[in-house]
Structures are given as structure tokens and as C-alpha cells.
């Protein structure tokens, strides 16, 4: 028998639709099977897509080997970021300190390659053994013509959200000294990691409308493009959970305003494109954005209609990282005639949960940092047909006999923009209507 009690400490992390909020942004409870990752993980997933950087993990081997080439971010040029660099700390280093080994590791990188940009991630034990990672990085910058940026990311210092913030600070440390000629027409796209090439889709849309993307954070980014980012006129923040902080910093220091946008789902894609044009305040751009989105929507409608029959009235559950993504997904499910019965996030913020609770019906369950027991209980109770989640949720969904779509690093197809709606719809349909379900639960 599965045990599906809820830990008392967890009761406040669970709520319902209709405007009530849930507790969030706290640490997981000891002894819970949490789906949540650490500060380092948050920092690493944000920075890793920078394609020509050396990402050196200062710590014991595990922290680096689990994060080798897992993000699914595509590059149009350098593939360096797909390698794994670590100081692989040994017992000796723990006793005598690892700073000297880190210095040598940087020397070894410089000796053979010609790095322009190194990120050094400090993991849990580095802080505890007292290595001065900042000093090592400073010395490296003095010794060699390169940028060497420390990323303070001991896992215990908070949760994944805090890691996003540490990544943002590292990015600021990188771009702060960049030259800043007067703002040119162009935007930065923040919080898109180019999973399955999604940035390329968005770049294409914006090009048609007449808005160049100057820099992306951090999918398909490199040193040169990042250093141009302070020239942009507007920042677009996509994965709000990871990048709002950076956008705020850039506004404060460079005077670049930002707007939050989302390219998931038809509705949010169109609304976002128009809002970008509006924010840039150019009537030509606005007109082109309207024309483009209308044309795209018109082309998408017959597709949506054709698939609606197989999908309408199915019940969807959402368990994703950030609150913003959850919101877009709810809207898309509404557009497909599907009902969202569970919404959970790992790092949603209070304001996200507020909006979520307004978008869903009063019976929808809202969860923060759910564990599998809770997910299972509500998936069953609510009779969900489909779960949208990440790597850890896929097998759980299958075990419960639910269809699944990966909306995280392991997505197979681009899910952004109008193409994304098509891919998403096909993928959901594929899983929901697979013949395998008819063999479930039967015997020989």
C-alpha cells in the first residue's frame, strides 16, 4: 500500500485555486522525498549554456559529474560547454585546503587552451574548508588576460532559486565592465536556454518584426555576445524565476528596462510579441507585430481545431520548475479545451501562485515543492490524464498510468512559439493516445 499522508510540516505548502496562496520559497523538510535541487544546481543550469566558457566545478567529483552536458541547450558555434571540468578534490585537499589545486587547475586550462572566460563554482564543502575562491579568481585575472568569475553556490545555502541569483551575480560581475555605447535598437532575451533550439525560433520571429536580439542569457550565448548586452534598449525576461534578479540589476546599473514575457502557448506568444513592440514604442514595430501574430494565429487555428477533439476535456497536471512556465501552460491547456487539475512548481513565488490561483478553478490543487507521495495522491484524487514535468516526474507518471510530456531539460522538441504549440500538442496527443495504455492493468 502506498502511504499518502501529508507531513504536517508540509500542509501549508499545499493550496487550492480561487485566490488563496501557498507557502513557498522555503527549504525542503528533512526526510521528505523532495523533487528540489540545490543552490549549485540552480547556478549551474543558468550559466552552463554559455558555450565558450570553461565551467570549472571546485569540489569533489560528484557535483560536477552529475551536471555534465545535461541541460539540452543547443549551440550554434562552440561546444566547449559540453565538457566537464572539475578539481575532483581528494582527502588531502580537504585537509590542507583546495585553493592551491584550483589555482593549478586554472593554470592547466590556460596552458593548453586559450580561455577568455572561466566560471569557478564553489560547492558545499569548499566554503566549509575555507578556500578563498574569490582570491584565486582575482589572481587568475591578474595573471592572465581572461575573466575568471567565482560562483558562490554551496548547496546548503538555500535552494535552487538562490542558485539562480548567484548565477545572476556572476553574470553581472562579467558584464559590469563592458563598454556601453548609446542604446541601439535591440533587445536581450533573458531566461531562455535554447533547449531544442527555441531561441532560434524566437530570434526568427523578432527578426521578421524588425527587432534584433543583441544578447541571450544564456542559451547559445558566448563571451562576445554577453559583453554587448549592456547596449540593448530592452530586456525580455522569459524564465522569470531565474532571471528577474538579473533584469533588475541591469535596469539599476545600465538603465535597461525589462518586461516579463513568455513564449509558451499561442496566447502568451502573441501577447508577448506585441508587448515587446509596444515597450520599444515604435508604431511600425507594433503594426508588424500585430500583423505577424495575427497571421501566425490564423495559421495555427485549423491545427488546434483538428487536434481538439482528441484532447478536449482531458485533465492535465503541471509540475514544473518556475511559476511563470506553469502559468503559460495553464493558458495553453485552456486553449486546448483541457482542464488543469493540479499545478505545482519547485520555485514559484508568492505572486505566481496568486495569478495561478486566479487562472484555475476552485478545485484545482496548488502545490509548492511537492514530493512524490503528494503528487501521487492528488494525481489519483483528481483523475489526471496527463502530467507535464521534468526528469524525476516522468517515471512516476508512467507508473501511475499517466501520459507525460517533458517540459524541462529533456524536452525532445522545441516548445516555444507557434511551432512549440504544434510540437506540444502532437507530443501530448502521442502520449495520451498511445496504444500501450490499453494493455495496462490487464493480465494474460
Amino acid at each position, binding site marked *: 500500500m502506498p502511504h499518502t499522508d501529508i507531513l504536517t510540516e508540509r500542509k501549508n505548502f499545499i493550496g487550492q485555486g480561487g485566490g488563496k496562496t501557498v507557502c513557498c520559497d522555503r527549504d525542503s523538510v*528533512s526526510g521528505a522525498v523532495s523533487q528540489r535541487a540545490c543552490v549549485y544546481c540552480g547556478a549551474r543550469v543558468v550559466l552552463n549554456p554559455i558555450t565558450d566558457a570553461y565551467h570549472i566545478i571546485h569540489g569533489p567529483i560528484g557535483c560536477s559529474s*552529475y551536471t555534465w552536458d545535461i541541460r539540452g541547450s543547443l549551440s550554434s558555434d562552440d561546444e566547449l560547454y559540453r565538457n566537464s571540468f572539475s578539481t575532483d578534490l*581528494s582527502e588531502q585537499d580537504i585537509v590542507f585546503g583546495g585553493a592551491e589545486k584550483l589555482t593549478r*587547475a586554472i*593554470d592547466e586550462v590556460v*596552458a593548453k587552451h586559450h580561455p577568455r572566460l572561466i566560471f569557478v563554482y564553489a560547492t558545499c564543502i569548499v566554503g566549509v574548508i575555507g578556500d578563498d575562491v574569490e582570491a584565486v579568481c582575482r589572481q587568475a585575472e591578474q595573471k592572465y588576460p581572461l575573466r575568471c568569475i567565482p560562483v558562490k553556490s554551496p548547496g546548503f545555502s538555500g535552494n535552487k532559486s538562490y542558485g539562480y541569483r548567484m548565477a545572476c551575480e556572476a553574470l553581472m560581475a562579467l558584464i559590469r565592465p563592458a563598454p556601453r555605447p548609446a542604446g541601439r535598437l535591440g533587445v536581450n532575451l533573458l531566461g531562455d536556454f535554447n533547449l531544442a533550439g527555441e531561441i532560434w525560433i524566437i530570434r526568427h520571429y523578432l527578426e521578421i518584426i524588425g527587432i534584433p536580439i543583441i544578447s541571450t542569457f544564456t542559451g547559445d550565448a558566448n563571451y562576445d555576445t554577453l559583453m554587448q548586452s549592456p547596449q540593448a534598449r530592452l530586456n525580455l525576461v522569459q524564465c522569470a524565476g531565474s532571471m528577474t534578479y538579473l533584469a533588475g540589476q541591469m535596469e539599476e546599473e545600465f538603465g535597461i528596462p525589462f518586461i516579463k514575457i513568455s513564449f509558451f502557448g499561442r496566447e502568451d506568444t502573441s501577447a508577448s510579441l506585441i508587448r515587446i513592440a509596444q515597450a520599444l514604442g515604435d508604431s511600425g514595430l507594433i503594426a508588424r507585430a500585430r500583423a505577424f501574430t495575427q497571421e501566425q494565429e490564423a495559421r495555427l487555428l485549423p491545427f488546434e481545431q483538428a487536434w481538439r477533439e482528441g484532447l478536449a476535456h482531458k485533465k492535465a497536471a503541471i509540475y514544473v520548475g518556475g511559476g511563470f512556465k506553469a502559468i503559460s501552460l495553464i493558458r495553453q491547456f485552456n486553449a486546448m479545451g483541457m482542464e488543469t487539475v493540479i499545478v505545482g512548481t519547485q520555485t514559484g513565488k508568492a505572486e505566481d501562485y496568486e495569478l495561478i490561483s486566479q487562472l484555475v478553478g476552485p478545485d484545482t490543487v496548488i502545490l509548492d515543492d511537492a514530493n512524490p507521495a503528494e503528487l501521487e495522491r492528488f494525481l489519483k484524487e483528481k483523475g489526471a490524464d496527463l502530467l507535464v514535468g521534468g526528469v524525476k516526474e516522468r517515471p512516476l507518471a508512467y507508473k501511475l498510468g499517466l501520459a507525460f510530456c517533458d517540459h524541462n531539460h529533456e524536452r525532445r522538441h522545441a516548445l516555444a512559439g507557434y511551432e512549440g504549440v504544434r510540437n506540444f500538442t502532437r507530443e501530448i496527443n502521442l502520449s495520451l493516445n498511445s496504444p500501450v495504455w490499453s494493455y495496462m492493468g490487464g493480465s494474460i
Partner: protein
Amino acid sequence: MLDATPKTQFKREALRINSCKTCQPVGALYAALGVHRCMPYSHGSQGCVAYHRTVLTRHYKDPMMAVSSSFTEGASVFGGKSNLTTGVKNVFDIYQPDIIAVHTTCLSEVIGDDLKAFIQDLDIPEGKYVVHSNTPSFKGSHINGYAAMMGGFINYLSQTTGQTNGKLAVFPAWSEPSDLRLLKSYLEQMGIAYTLFPDQSGVVDAPMTDHFEYFPKGGTTIEEIQGLGDCTHVLGLGEWTVPEPCAVLEKKCGTKSILLPYPIGIQNTDRLLMTLTDLTGKPVPYAIEEERGQLIDLILDQHIWTSQKSCAIFGDPDFILGVTSLVLEMGMLPKYVLTGTPGHAFPKMCQALFEAYGVEDQCQAFEFDDLFDLHQFIKNDPVDVLIGTNYGKQIARAESIPFVRAGWPVLDRYGHYLWPNIGYRGAMRFVERISGAIMDHVDAVCPDEDFDVVM
């Protein structure tokens, strides 16, 4: 192209590039999954266990249960005793396992948490157990963590009553569930009473039902682990990995151990079966002998395709020692055999194999090494086939070499954990896949006039 590896080799001491090992706790976690109704418990920050569960899930495509102490800043300064106490209570309250297997992490090791003392002070419900092992990742690798956790279970649970239970204990090195199933089928076909520990089959490869079980049917039971001290012998399969748990059991209960190579390949499987016969007096049934004959037949049929072909093998010590033995039996040349796990014994064991086939001048073995080095070796002196985990695919693609996935982890394919590597059946599968990879490559690159429907 996906190739950031330069050809010129250079000396590296401090920098690890593209590691061929991971950390101890994931091994401890995997060992603990081989115990029935056991909840693995990571004493440290929440991040480590999230990674460990993810990598296991990516390999087995099944949910993996484990919990953590969820250290915060406070715990990293004042120690993790209260986190452990709360965590253990929560686990028993909500998930209701029969046993919790705690392993340490780098962090709890560095701050010096005394797990033994912490556990003594715990309020453990009647009939339930909490065991632990020390698994600092700045020593060894996931393989050491696996062995350490086995030792932890034995230390806490195994006893001797002074009377033998007539069973043979079998300690496998890190194994796929398919291999454990094959091992059990050999033992059962021979009519031998046994305790296999640990046994992840039925846990990590549990069948589809329409509901989710925190604790699927499989796993060695607590009673079986308690009874290890009364077993007639313990048979350790994997000369690199399991000497430690064998020694722990011998020290605690006096159970004598016999160590054998991990049974991949003809000779290693022969030795396993002969040893089983020697220990129990039970003959090897014809069905198994028949499999052996089929294997030899297969190797013979395809030998012109694989003889003299060179290969590189990388992964975990015992597993790749077995694969090395098998490819030598096939007449292949294991030019590079490389593990990330540290330990001087490994190259020596490989050397002995090379010498047995007179290829010591053409083959090299490496311990505590990484895949960046392996890639450079291959760039300078290529091989015909690459055998190893999914991380070999970057090298295979960059160098256009046929690639056979084997070992742990394999994150980019489905179903591999259902088919054996060990025994005659496992060897057949290897032979089929190795020759198949070589021939697929020929088919893909040969000129039209050489493209043949019969090969």
C-alpha cells in the same frame, strides 16, 4: 563538430576533464535500493540526493526513492544531528519503510558528524532499523560507496547463531538487475540455497502495474541480511569491489569468503559455475552447458569480424575487467582499458589478463583517469570499437568509431537493464552487439561495390 579535445597530450594534475567516475553516495544509494523495503537516506544537503536520484532515474527510467537531511547553513556549522533525528522520524512516519540506510556526503564528513553516535540516540520504532555507512566522495568513487554501504548493512544486522543455515551467500559487485536475475536463475537451476545481497532486481526494474509503489517487491530482506553470518560461505563476485564487504562479514561472523572475477566472459563464467559445484557438490545442469556451447558457436561464427580488432573499454573496475576478459577470448585487442575509480590493483589485474594472452605490449590499463585522456589516446592511436557508458558517444562521434554501450550509467537508451551482461547469455549479447557495431559501421561507410546483403 562536437570535439573540443586537442590531439596533443599535456600533463594535467589538478584538472579533471570528463570524469569517468562519480561520487560514493550514489553507490551507497544503489546498494540500499537492493534491500527490501529500505529507504536510502543521504545525510547532507538536498542537492546531492536530487542528483543521485536523477542519474539513477535516467538510467533505469523508473522513479528512485531516497531522502536527505536537507542541510541548511545552520547544520553545516553546528552539525546535522537534529536534521537526522527529524528526518528519520519523518521517513518512518510517512513512507513506513522497514529500514533506513543512511550514507554520509562530503559535507557531513567534513563537518565531522558522528553517525554512529547519532543513530544510537535515535528513537527507532519497534521492529525497524537504521543503518549507516561513511561515504566521503573525496575518496574513491561510486564503487567504493556501493561496497561501503554493503559493509554498513552487515555491520549493523548480520549475526551468527553458531548454526549454519545451509545457504550460500553471494555478494555481487555493482550489477544490473538483469544480471542479478541471471545469477539467481543459475543458482536456482543448480538447486542451491542462497542469499543474494544486495539484489536490486524487482526494485529498479519493477514491472508496470497501474499504481506506484514506494517499495516494490524486490530486494534482499532484513532477515536474509541478518542470516548472512550463518551462511556456509560467501562468494564474492568482483575482485575489485567486494573484498571489503566480504572482509566485514568474515570479521564479524567468521564466514569464509571466496573471491572470483565478475562473471563476464567464458572463463569467468566457467569459474563461477565450477566454484558453485565445488562448494555445493551440485552439478551444472545441461541447460547451462548448452548455453555455453551456443556462445562458443557464436564466437566462432563471427570471429573473422572481431579477431585482431582493437578496442577501448572504460567504466567501473570489475565490470570492465570482465569485458576485457571477454574481448580477449574473442581475439580482440583491448588497447586501452580505463577506469576513473582510483586503485593501483586495477591496472595490475588488467596486466595479468594482457599477459595471459601475450598482448601486454599492445595494451594499457589506467586507473583514476578520465575520458578526456581516453579521447586523446584514441586520437593519437585509434581503435576499432569503443565500449563503455553513454559518455563515450561524444568520442565515438568525433572519431567515427563503432560504439557499444555497456556499464553504468547508460542514460541515452532504453531497455538495456533488462538484458544480461554476465554469464553465457550476457556474453552472447556482447558478442552480438560488438560484431554488430563493427558490421553496421562497415555497412555505413563501405563503397557501393562492397555493400553486401550477406555478411
